[in-house]
């Protein structure tokens, strides 16, 4: 009977690994083909699939630029927007989360419940009104319209609150007060250095969210010099590129490779950050 049990387990284990490998292939193959095709010439791509990179990366890049797609500018636009969004999100969300966690004040409970509610509100309910309002203020086609709203980023505050609550810091705060530190000074000099892992996780999510954001930028930004990478991707769909497959794949790869690099470096932070919202309500 014991033999039978062991046999069953190994059969099941084999089946499980088989399913995992199939799922992995489904997950990775499209991304791999994209990256490989970015290095192959259009002729090679038309001859058939390959899983090995070729040598036409720079040629594809020249074709892409030659057709008027300013990839470097899109890249720097996206980078500028993502970095500013990250800084604004992390600083203001940590500030708010610290205010909730470190102080007792009237309405505190109500305020933290309200933030959970805000996370659930879809942007459909605000985007059109936001657009008209920004155009009255003359802020359409301006990155400020994409960055400033992040001062009140409910999802990030919720994350920051969960993170800070898991840290024991009351003693440190009291000690800093006895040493004569100001309340804002305690936040900047005592809390922020301690909260670096949480702030990093929050920052990575903020960066990726901004880098990937298409809809809001698409609605608010109109001049082509200010296009971000996802908006340039949309122009890649046009007729000009119809037959330039290598260049198209290269353009797409340029938008996702930075994210893959970030993920390779910080996957631990990212994976651990995902479940935080779900586990503690």
């Amino acid at each position, binding site marked *: 009977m014991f033999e039978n049990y062991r046999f069953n*387990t190994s059969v099941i284990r084999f089946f*499980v690994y088989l399913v*995992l490998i199939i*799922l992995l292939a489904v*997950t*990775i193959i*499209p*991304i791999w083909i994209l990256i490989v095709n970015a290095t192959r010439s259009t002729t090679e791509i*038309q001859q058939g*699939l390959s899983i090995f990179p070729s040598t036409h990366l720079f040629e594809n890049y020249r074709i892409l630029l030659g057709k008027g797609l300013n990839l470097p500018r899109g890249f720097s636009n996206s980078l500028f927007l993502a970095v500013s969004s990250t800084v604004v999100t992390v600083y*203001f*969300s940590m500030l*708010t989360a610290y*205010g909730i966690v*470190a*102080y007792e004040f009237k309405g*505190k409970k109500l305020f933290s419940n309200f933030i959970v509610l*805000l996370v659930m*509100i*879809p*942007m*459909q309910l*605000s*985007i*059109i*009104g*936001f*657009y*008209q*309002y920004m155009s009255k203020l003359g802020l359409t086609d301006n990155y400020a319209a994409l960055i*400033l*709203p992040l*001062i*009140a980023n*409910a999802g990030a505050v919720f994350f920051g609150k969960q993170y800070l609550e898991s840290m024991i810091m*009351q003693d440190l705060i009291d000690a800093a007060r006895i040493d004569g530190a100001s*309340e804002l000074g305690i*936040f900047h000099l005592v809390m922020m250095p301690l909260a670096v892992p949480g702030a990093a996780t929050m920052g990575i999510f903020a960066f990726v969210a901004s*880098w990937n954001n*298409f809809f809001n930028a698409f*609605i608010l930004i109109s001049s082509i010099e200010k296009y971000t*990478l*996802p908006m340039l*991707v949309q122009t890649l*769909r046009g007729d000009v590129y119809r037959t330039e*497959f290598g260049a198209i794949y290269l353009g*797409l790869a340029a*938008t996702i490779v930075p*994210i*893959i690099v970030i*993920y390779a470096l910080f*996957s631990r932070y*990212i*994976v651990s950050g*995902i*479940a935080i919202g*779900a*586990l*503690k*309500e």
Partner: protein
Amino acid sequence: MSLSKFKRNYYGYLFIAPFVIGFLIFGLYPVYNTLALSFTDTTLMTKNANFVGLKNFERLFADNVFINAVKNTWIIWILNFIPQVGIAMLLSIWFTNTRLKIKGVGVWRALFFLPNLLVPASVAALFFAFFSFYGPVNQFMVRYGLLPEAMHYLQSVPVTRGLVVFIQWWMWFGQTVIIVMAGMTSIPVTLYEAAMVDGATSSQMFRRITLPLLKPILIYVFVTSLVGGMQMFDIPFLLTDGRGSPNASIQTNNILMYMKFASSKGHIGAASSVGVLIFIMTSLCALGIFYFLRDRDNDAPKRSWFSKKSTER
């Protein structure tokens, strides 16, 4: 002492003040403005707008376009949500099973999650390239005799819809695995040990321990996925012509809203009314989920370990 404590806690308001001000300016007012616009015939081209009452909403129900968009969004969301949760449950059970001892759980999870981080606009353009007439999928299918001749995938309603469903699933199942698994590992092992002593089978343990205790997590997954799914835009917008072709079969709520916004007149009053209706629909469904899946049985094990352990200060 009490005065200094009062002073100190007054700082709480100062710390949350930037958020509150930012929210009033960039969060609350736009929501109010969208609601207000939905009752007017405002366009981007004209200066003066009139209050038209519920006319925008009536007009949405006058033809089939809005209903069709809502239907498409639901179909695409449900068809990707069911396999997403199903696979997440299955993988979580395998990954946490002490008998199977799957190796490299962290690596598998991390790789399955990767598509979630990729630029959705690029993912849509990528699958457009794959499934275009001269794309690699046709090459492969024809070369290996799986199809007699190349076909226009993105002109077929079932193929295009199926593709959107697949891409949504592809991008989100890894995240659901991570969340469901975190929920499963937070269930105390002692419960299973006690059940095993009592001679429970593994399917009994799954139904009586795992499922009930996983409910808060499943509700969370359900509601966040619903709210996200009802906002689906990038993938269906960029996979075909931006109007939900073929035959408006992947025209989602948000694509319709965008089409009204970007129409030649820029009818933002009508666009707002689409947003407002979708919000009402989503909220009612989310509340329904909370209501029907709430804990009815007071004797059921409380999810005490989900809440904070201590709040002493």
